[in-house]
């Protein structure tokens, strides 16, 4: 073997050894980072949890099913309204405080009607049907045709306001107007509120 070939061969081995040594070092370093207690629990509880969810859900869910994984309840409410309302009908969006005070179950604590936040409701509904907020002028509120009424026994009920007399409809609207429209983003704030509830007349 020529002298230059020998040198080339040696430097090739040295270079390969260097790469393998660095690879070993890298794997040891990364292994140490992985087994740090907080890091390993992050992998096990969160990232691996997502991998398991993905495996469970598979690849066959269509767009509606995927949407309903997050917004099943909201989609059900909107589908119900969409099915009963005519193009000229108007839905009166009930105040969140009214729903929480009259129909919220703290055990198990669920979403405290956050779909009643007008911008969120608008996002979910878009152009499917018209709705009006409780803070709108009376001239608009009297045109409302549907709303949800709530009580502890029967829970939420979708009602057609045109089934009521003008005086009854006005009384319903006036009652809803006494509640603050929105204020709870998470269950705990609704639970805390119900513990120390003091219903006061609300004015914008």
């Amino acid at each position, binding site marked *: 073997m020529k002298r230059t070939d020998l040198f080339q061969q040696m430097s090739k081995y*040295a270079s390969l*050894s*260097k*790469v*393998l*040594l*660095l*690879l070993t*070092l*890298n*794997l040891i*370093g*990364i292994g140490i*980072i992985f087994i*740090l207690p*907080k*890091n390993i629990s*992050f992998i096990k509880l*969160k*990232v691996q949890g*997502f*991998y398991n969810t*993905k495996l469970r*859900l598979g690849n066959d*869910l269509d*767009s509606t099913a*995927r*949407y309903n*994984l*997050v*917004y099943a309840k909201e989609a059900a409410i909107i589908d119900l309204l969409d099915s009963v309302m005519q193009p000229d009908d108007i839905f009166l969006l009930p105040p969140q405080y009214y729903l929480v005070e009259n129909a919220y179950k703290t055990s198990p604590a669920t979403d405290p009607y*956050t779909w009643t*936040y*007008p*911008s*969120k409701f*608008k*996002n979910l509904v*878009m*152009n499917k049907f018209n709705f009006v*907020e409780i*803070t*709108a002028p009376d001239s608009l509120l009297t045109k409302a045709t549907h709303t949800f009424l709530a009580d502890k026994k029967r829970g939420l009920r979708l009602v057609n306001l045109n089934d009521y007399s003008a005086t009854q409809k006005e009384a319903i609207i006036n009652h809803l107007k006494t509640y603050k*429209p*929105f204020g709870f*983003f998470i269950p705990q704030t609704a639970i805390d509120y119900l513990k120390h509830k003091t219903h006061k007349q609300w004015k*914008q």
Partner: protein
Amino acid sequence: MEAIAIILHIVTGAGVLSILRIRRHLIAFLSLSFLLGIGLTSFVPFLLELAHININKVSVLLSMALLAIASAICCIYNRRFLIQILSINNSKIRLYEIPFFLITAYFMYISIWKCYFYPNIPFDTLVGPELIAKATFFEQTLRNTIYTDFLTHTYPLSNQPYYAPFIMLMQVIFLCLGSLFGKIWLSGMVLAFFLYFYFELRYYIHPLLVGWLLTFLWFMPELYSYTYLVQTDYPNAIFLFIAFSCMYRYYLNDNPKKADFWLSSLFFGFASWTRTETILFLPVILLFLTKQRFIIKALSYSIIPLILFIGWNYIFLGFIIPKAVPLGTINFDFSDYFSRGWTTLVGTHKIMFDIAYWNYSFILFFIILLVNISLYRTKTEFLKLSWVMGMHIIFMLIVLHIEGANIPFTFRRGFFKIIFLSLFYAGTSQLLINCSKWLERAITKYL
């Protein structure tokens, strides 16, 4: 269609980078091209609106294609430069670097899946950017009924619909292109950012150290969540980081390249286009312009960010569409200032060192920062430290003086910016540069 969009973003960015002659490792070049392309493409719906053209699949796709064709012509014109970028020497990855890319793939896979699979969840996004994006998609105009009718009457009204428009415009583009939930662009940004970050730090220190630092970055639970939850903060931190990294190259170079300066300014503009308060951090980045003709350079640098800031917040909102809430009210309340300032300082530190949010990572970056500053007290190290500290101080002032800004939300997510900068500080520190040299010497000696 999403794949076509990604290719168009890369071509768009590559054209501009080839004009500016920005040299990076091939993967970093492609990542930077994508991020630059996505920033530039975000203006498409906005420009269509100004030209009174309906925003729909045809107009968006055609505009993106035109933009990409214009950039492709630039690429052809600068083909010699691009051939150098594509050369084997500029695209080498060594075997021992592979583990980091495998880790990135492990984390990214979930991020991409969640972006593709689930609808948007964050409340701020639902009632702000996504609401506007959906309405724009259905009505084919940014002057839609949400701005003109709904927001002017609704209660309670928050400022999310008036956020800086980047994520809203990206949602518009991807909805127009047929993406079901839109947000897959976020995963693209995160992947491009990690690759860019890796190769940017590899320019200064040994790849082994870069891989370990960025592995720590993946292990931040709070940060990881926002790789699949669409919010303004992560894209904003990405753009801002690139602005800072380009500015650092500009500063370090004996013959400063104007291209680095303008690229930095452009990315700072994108950051202001993503979150409005970014404009307040402008003085921090300008600290590196301490050489000659500071005022002219500072003014030149500020032009793009200021145009985008004013263009959206004071011309489009207000003149072209009605604005129902003012842009963050400033409060000049100086009562109990020191006590409130102290509370803010303590509150921000609690977030910064909370391992439930960041695991060990920020503590590690902070330790490197302390050791480095105690060993190497050079001007450059102090200036870099002033970036991290300057951002923190300005955040505290924002919390103290802007209505609605708070520590649990505004600072916690805004802290992403500081994390990236502190990691950049660690990765470019003299301490790790010397460690890299030592490592290289030790291995050569051993073999």
